[in-house]
C-alpha cells in the first residue's frame, strides 16, 4: 500500500514562505476554485491557506535558535477527522493515502476541524466548505506531466530542498530513508494519529578538536626526554 507524504527538514528550512505562496498559487488556480482572500490589501487580511510557515524561538538569549516550521495537513494514517464527518465528504484515498475533502459534499459544519489536533483544516469564508492540503492531488496523479513535475507545488518551489516527497511505506524511498537515518519524527505522537508527514530535526555539526589532533603524541619532532635519573630504581632492578 502506498502512503504519500512530505518530510520536512527543519535543518535547512529558512522560513522564506516560498512553499506557502506556491501552494496558494497552484491551488487557487486549480480545479477546486479559488482559495478565498478577504481584505487582501487592507487591514486584517485573512484567507484560506493549505500551508503556513511558523517561526519559533528556542532557548533564551544569548543561546537562542530560530526554528522555521512549515505546517500543513499531515495526512495521518489514522485520520481522526475522517470518521467524524457526517456526510462522508472527508475521506482518505485508498490508493495513495492522501486525506481529501469532497467540496461538493461538505456542509461546512466544521466538526472535522475540531477533530484535528494540528489545526490544519480551514473553512473557506466564501465557499463555506472545509479546505485542506491535497498534496496537490491534481499534480501528483496527472500522468500527462513529466515525472519530475509530479510533485506537490511546495516541494518544487522549496529553494533549500527542505521538503521531501514520496511514499513513506516504501522502505527504500527517499523519504523513508530520510526518516530512518536522520531521526524523522511525527508531531503530537501522544494522540495516536500516526501522521504520515514527518519532520527531520535540526542538527548542529560540532567539530571536536582534541589535544592530540593539534599535537601528535608520536610527533617525531618532539624533543626526547633527556632527564638524567639518579637514585631511582632502574629497569635492571625490576626486570630480569
Amino acid at each position, binding site marked *: 500500500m502506498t502512503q504519500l507524504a512530505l518530510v520536512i527538514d527543519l535543518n535547512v528550512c529558512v522560513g522564506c514562505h516560498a512553499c506557502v505562496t506556491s501552494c496558494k498559487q497552484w491551488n487557487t488556480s486549480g480545479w477546486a476554485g479559488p482559495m478565498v482572500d478577504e481584505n487582501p490589501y487592507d487591514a486584517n487580511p485573512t484567507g484560506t491557506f493549505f500551508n503556513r510557515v511558523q517561526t519559533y524561538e528556542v532557548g533564551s538569549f544569548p543561546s537562542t535558535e530560530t526554528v522555521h516550521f512549515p505546517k500543513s495537513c499531515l495526512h495521518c494514517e489514522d485520520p481522526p477527522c475522517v470518521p467524524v464527518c*457526517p456526510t462522508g465528504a472527508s475521506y482518505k484515498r485508498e490508493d495513495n493515502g492522501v486525506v481529501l475533502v469532497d467540496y461538493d459534499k461538505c456542509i461546512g459544519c466544521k466538526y472535522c476541524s475540531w477533530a484535528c*489536533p494540528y489545526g490544519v483544516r480551514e473553512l473557506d469564508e466564501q465557499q463555506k466548505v472545509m479546505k485542506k492540503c491535497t498534496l496537490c492531488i491534481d499534480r501528483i496523479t496527472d500522468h500527462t506531466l513529466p515525472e519530475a513535475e509530479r510533485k506537490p507545488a511546495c516541494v518544487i518551489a522549496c529553494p533549500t530542498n527542505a521538503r521531501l516527497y514520496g511514499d513513506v511505506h516504501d522502505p527504500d524511498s527517499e523519504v523513508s530513508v530520510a526518516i530512518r537515518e536522520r531521526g524523522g519524527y511525527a508531531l503530537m505522537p501522544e494522540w495516536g494519529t500516526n501522521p504520515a508527514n514527518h519532520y527531520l530535526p535540526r542538527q548542529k555539526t560540532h567539530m571536536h578538536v582534541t589535544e592530540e589532533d593539534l599535537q601528535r603524541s608520536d610527533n617525531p619532532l618532539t624533543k626526547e626526554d633527556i632527564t638524567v635519573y639518579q637514585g631511582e630504581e632502574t629497569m635492571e632492578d625490576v626486570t630480569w
Partner: protein
Amino acid sequence: MHPAFSVIFLTTLIGAGQGLFLALFTGQFYSTVELVEPQPASFYAVGSALSLALLVGGLAASFFHLGRPERAWRAAAMWRTSWLSREVIVLPAMMGIVFLYGVFHWAGWTQPFIVLGEGTLPIDATFVLGMLGVLVTLALFVSTGMIYASVKFLQEWHSPYTIVNFIFLGTASGFMLAAAYSALLGNHLVGFFGTWAVIATLLGLGTRTASLMRNASIKHRSNLQTAIGIRHRGIVQKSQGFSADSFNTREFFHHQSPETLKLIRVMFMVLVFPLPIALVLLAYALASPTLPILAFVVQYIGLIAERWYFFAEAEHPQNLYYQQIS
C-alpha cells in the same frame, strides 16, 4: 473553543424540548396508574406541540452553524462512524414521535388495546408512542453529548460528565417548563412537575460541579514541545505565519478575558441551580401561577450561559500553534 450561538441554542432548545416530552409522558404514566389526576387530551396535545416547537427551534438554530445548509440532508450518511450523523437521524425521529404522540392524544385515539397488571395498566397507542419516545429522547441526549464527548482532543469534553450533564440539565429545564405550563393552565400538576424539576436540577448540580472540578485540574496531553517536536522547555512562538487572523484563530479561541469566563461561570451556577429551585419552592409555598414560569425562564437563560461556558472552557491543542500574530 469559540462559543457559537447556533450550537448553544441548538443544544439548550432541544434539551428543553426533550425534557418537556419526558415530563409529559411521566405525567401520563403517573395518571395511568392513578398517582396523579388525569389531564384532558388538550394538555398532552398542546404540550407536545410546545415540545415539538422547541425541537424545531433547535433544528433551525443548527442550520445557522452550517456553511452550506442546503446540503444538510447529506449529514445522515455516515451514521456508522459519526455521532453528528446519528444526531441528524435521531432528532427528526424524535420530532416524528412527539408529533404522533400529540396527534393521538388530540384525536382521542387512546382506547387501550391491552390491559396489563390485573386491570391497573391500560396500554394504548399513546403509551406505546410515549415509551418509544423516551427511548428516542435518551438516544438523542446521548448522540448530542457524544458529539462533544467523543472528540478526544478536547479533553474538557472527553468525559462521561458531558453526556450526563446534557441529560440532567435538559431534563431539568423540560420539567421546569412542564411546571410552568401546568401553572399557566392552573392544573394540579405544578407540584408534581416542580418536584421532578428540582430533583433533576440537583442531579445536574452534582454532575456539573463534578465536571467543573475535573476540568479545573485537567492536565493537557499536548504542549509546545510535542507540537513541534523540539525538546526544550523554553520555546516561544514568534510568528504563526500570517499577520491578522484566520479560521484557526476565530474558531478555536473565545477571545474573552479570564474574568469574563469566571463571571459567566458564577452566573450560570446561580441561574441554573439555586435560583430556579428557590423560585419553585416559593411558588409551591405561595401557590403562585407565575413563579414557575419565571423559574423556567431564569433556568433557561442560565443554561445559555452554561453552554457558552462549556464551549469557552474547552482548550483545543491546535491553539498551541496559534499564539503569536506578527
